């Protein structure tokens, strides 16, 4: 509020766009280098890329350069215009998603009253992109992949929403910023040393949410839409060069953004327990939190992405029907029970 007021509207918008790019691409790049290149390699007793830059740190730029140079191949029978749009839709959903994530007391793009609702709504936009990518490729593997993706993302949207409902009930608000504040200003049975990160009080919700995120991101063990060993990368089969790059960025950027949302909802977001500095509400927070907040957020996000990637590199994948059964027969009842429990406890305390 303090910073933004000094700029004219166009500059604010420009700053927001640039900030959004940074907030999406920087985590994506870090995730790719740190987890996809290095952590995965270490888990497999190898070093990963080592040639481009010190310890291969420039590898991602080399890869991007390679993809940009590649011929943009399009299947003859593909539905060309839709085929081109599909990766953009997937990426767009990531950018829409990051718009509501708060990074600091004032460092935020929008202060949506119904931020949770919005985030859950736009996160399913990517399903459209994936579905039309699979359909327009005119490839049987892509079609199977696209259909699987649609089925899976819709199935897991539900437990995700239900898991978040517990948080919303406990915080009493749908504003993500307010949820952060509620966690950090909160207390557990009168002890405020840790605030009240909802991972402690909403652990079932957190577990369900992370499983659903894993499925939303189509990471193993829920990666049947991509399934490189059976569907040969599913809906991405026919994409090459630049368009594949967009899918690739979107995959890891979305992982980052979902991890951000999870850290906002369950780990206290950008905040540290307010009692450490004697703050009570959002207006008392010092301005330096606008710089440190994003870093804290980034750290928490990385921790969650580590979890996501660790599971991805260790587990084999489910079968499509097992995945659906898991969503409908386990996750949804569990999260419904969680809501009930939360509501009861909310009334009791």
């Amino acid at each position, binding site marked *: 509020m303090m910073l933004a007021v000094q700029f004219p509207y166009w500059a604010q918008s420009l700053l927001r766009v640039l900030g959004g790019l940074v907030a999406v691409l920087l985590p994506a790049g870090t995730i790719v280098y740190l987890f996809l290149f290095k952590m995965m390699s*270490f*888990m497999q*007793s190898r*070093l990963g890329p080592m040639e481009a830059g010190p310890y291969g740190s420039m590898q991602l730029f080399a890869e991007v350069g390679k993809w940009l140079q590649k011929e943009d191949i399009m299947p003859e029978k593909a539905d060309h215009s839709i085929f081109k749009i599909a990766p953009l839709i997937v990426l767009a959903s990531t950018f829409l998603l990051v718009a509501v994530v708060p990074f600091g007391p004032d460092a935020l793009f929008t202060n949506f009253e119904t931020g949770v609702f919005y985030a859950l709504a736009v996160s399913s936009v990517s399903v459209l992109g994936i579905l039309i990518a699979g359909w327009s490729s005119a490839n049987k593997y892509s079609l199977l992949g696209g259909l699987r993706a649609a089925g899976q993302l819709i199935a897991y949207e539900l437990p995700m929403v239900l898991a978040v409902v517990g948080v919303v009930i406990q915080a009493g608000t749908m504003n993500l910023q307010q949820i952060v504040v509620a966690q950090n200003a909160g207390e557990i049975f009168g002890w405020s040393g840790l605030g009240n990160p909802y991972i402690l009080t909403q652990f079932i919700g957190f577990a369900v949410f992370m499983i659903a995120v894993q499925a939303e991101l189509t990471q193993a063990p829920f990666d049947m839409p991509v399934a490189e060993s059976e569907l040969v990368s599913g809906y991405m089969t026919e994409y090459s060069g630049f368009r594949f790059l967009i899918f690739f960025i979107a995959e890891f950027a979305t992982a980052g953004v979902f991890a951000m949302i999870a850290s906002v909802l369950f780990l206290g977001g950008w905040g540290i327990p307010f009692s450490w500095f004697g703050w009570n509400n959002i207006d008392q927070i010092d301005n330096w939190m606008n710089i440190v907040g994003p870093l804290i957020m980034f750290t928490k996000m990385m921790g969650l992405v580590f979890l996501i990637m*660790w*599971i991805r590199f*260790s587990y084999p994948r489910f079968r499509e029907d097992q995945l659906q059964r898991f969503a409908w027969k386990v996750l949804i009842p569990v999260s419904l029970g969680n809501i009930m429990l939360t509501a009861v406890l909310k009334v009791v305390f």
Partner: protein
Amino acid sequence: MGLKPKVPGLVKGLGVTFNTMMATITKGSNTVQYPHEKEAPPLRARGVIALREDNCTSCMLCARSCPDWCIYIEGHKELAPPRRAGGAPRKVNKLDRFDIDYALCMYCGICVEVCPFDALFWSPEYEYSEPKIADLLHDKTKLGEWMETVPEAPELEVGADKKGKK
């Protein structure tokens, strides 16, 4: 067994990958950064065939026993000075051409084995790939150069009966 609680397989799996990661970070990886460091192949490795031209009598045994027909030999007879003074001049076979086409060779080692005069040897050298397939035809000069890389035969394990051939 017994009282030990059952750890779910999912958790055990995570443990395996995590331990491997830690081992890689602390003890180093199992891979070798190839162009910078190289692993030495074992002494017996069949990398490339070296030719000691002086020993070759162009007897054609190797060319005839090659399953892939990838050895090409041409030679002619020559009169050499007699070994003892006053003797008759000897007839020797002089080697004109000895080519091995490594594009065809399947590294079975039959030629090295059948050679009765110890003219062919295995060298563990392996870095001789070429951009053009025709360049994989090594002539006798090039095959002679490989002689420098031929190692001594390794000692044999306990209980071996005879000393190793070559």
